[in-house]
């Protein structure tokens, strides 16, 4: 559990880094995310998935802080292995030695993993303030954008709380890895209850803090640094689009986006 929470913390924590992806306009990055994501839902071809995986890997190594991204993914991979087992059991039932089920379960998990990887790449390289501004510029009312951004902003805070709670309860002799399935579920209560209570209390603090700083007193919002599209943002989205287009056409034998229209 500690590992998963540490990964979540690392994924969503605000940290400025001078890497290419961190400097791409969040609007373009979000659009690229959609371009990369869409074909994944339209094919189950492992070759195409592999091509996408290599593309993400390339971006991780050349355009972002790879160490941070791999660490964010590490905890989630553990979860995916658990999901794989569950999906396999459902697919294979009642014949548990089933190669076909193993294959389809793998494809489903691979698809899910790619999505998680894309979102990880997006969130580890996007500043939360820029995201709020991007949403505002896309005509989302600022209080709605802010609420969305706030929910992302608090992921590392809650993850950190859960790590602290986990440590505190283990220090009082709680052993989560002992006992049967239901026993282990019951042992989650000493971790979940304080986490909920702290989160509920925090909602109140945040609401008060926002009100005391006159949130929503003016309908128009200005920003210290304005987001603006630059050349490299366009290059990034165009290259990503070209990659998806080429690999999909080569592997699937049809042109994506165009044939769907």
């Amino acid at each position, binding site marked *: 559990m500690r590992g998963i929470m*540490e*990964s979540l*913390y*690392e994924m969503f*924590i605000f940290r400025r880094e001078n890497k290419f992806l961190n400097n791409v306009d969040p609007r373009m990055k979000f659009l690229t995310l959609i371009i990369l994501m869409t074909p994944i839902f339209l094919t189950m071809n492992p070759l195409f998935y592999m091509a996408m995986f290599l593309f993400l890997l390339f971006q991780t190594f050349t355009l972002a802080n790879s*160490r*941070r991204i791999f*660490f964010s993914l590490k905890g989630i991979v553990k979860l995916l292995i658990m999901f794989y087992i569950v999906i396999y059991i459902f697919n294979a039932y009642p014949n548990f030695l089933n190669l076909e089920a193993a294959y389809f379960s793998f494809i489903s998990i691979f698809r899910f993993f790619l999505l998680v990887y894309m979102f990880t790449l997006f969130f580890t390289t996007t500043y939360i303030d820029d995201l709020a501004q991007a949403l505002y510029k896309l005509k989302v009312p600022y209080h709605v954008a802010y609420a969305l951004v706030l929910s992302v902003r608090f992921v590392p805070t809650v993850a950190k*709380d859960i790590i*602290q*709670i986990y*440590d*505190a*309860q*283990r*220090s*009082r*002799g*709680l*052993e989560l890895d002992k006992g049967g399935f239901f026993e282990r579920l019951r042992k989650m*209560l*000493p971790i979940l*209850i*304080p986490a909920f*209570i*702290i989160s509920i*209390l925090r909602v109140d603090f945040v609401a008060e803090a926002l009100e005391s700083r006159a949130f929503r007193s003016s309908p128009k919002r200005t920003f210290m640094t304005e987001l603006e599209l630059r050349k490299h943002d366009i290059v990034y989205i165009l290259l990503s689009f070209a990659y998806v287009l080429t690999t999909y056409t080569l592997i699937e034998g049809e042109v994506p986006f165009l044939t769907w229209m």
Partner: protein
Amino acid sequence: METVIEVRNLSYMYPGGIVALKNVSLDVYLGEKLVILGSNGAGKSTLIKHFNGLLKPQRGYVKVFGVDTRKASVAELSRKVGIVFQNPYHQFFSEKVWDEVAFALKNFGYSEETIKYRVTKVLRLFDLYDYADKSPFELSSGEMRRLAIASILAYDPDIIVLDEPTVGQDRIQKEKLKEYIRLLSLQNKTIILVTHDIEFVTEGFDRIVVMSNGMVVGEGSPREILYDEELLRKANLILPQIPEIALKMGDSAVFKKKPLTEDELLSLIVDILGVGK
């Protein structure tokens, strides 16, 4: 003196790449009242999480009563080392104060009879017995803090680690806390207090270890450490009030005796002025 915790060349880096501990070596002796002093981010909390195996050494080792923490579970080590964490909200989950104190005892497999005896004893010690059937969340912040300590003391660990216990506490609460620490010390418990509250440690402790940037930068008696302006500055701390006044007085007699409490300073001033002679 018997060593209860032995830390050697301990290094630890957090997953995000932040180095929290660099080559830390430290001995904690049986029955002593030790302070680990340092500003925020000095690595104090990371260090104490190694004492009961919550974090395992990446380099170097930590031995608790001779047992290497890498070879023991958190539950086994926690029986010897009780850590009271900074924020009581991070541990309370029971409906009643009583259950909160009994939680660790149940986890460690004590009999119903022992649990009843120990919970009653510790609740009485901390003036919480009248609240036994109340929700922990109905308590005041001082009472919560006491309950957090009580819930650790209930299973009687030999070493008690208090992580920033003075945060958000008024002076009266701090004085009470000092009194509890004294009481525990009388029972021959080893106390480790982790804090950045330099005023709190001027009285009642045997030794101070100063940490900064993940390293131990100084170690000595409170009188040595709390008068070492350069060391404290290096650790991003400032002198406590009494040493600061004493140093500003510039009197060699005062400086020689290094007063730490109001009473000590006052008696020196009385001596210098010759009042009452």
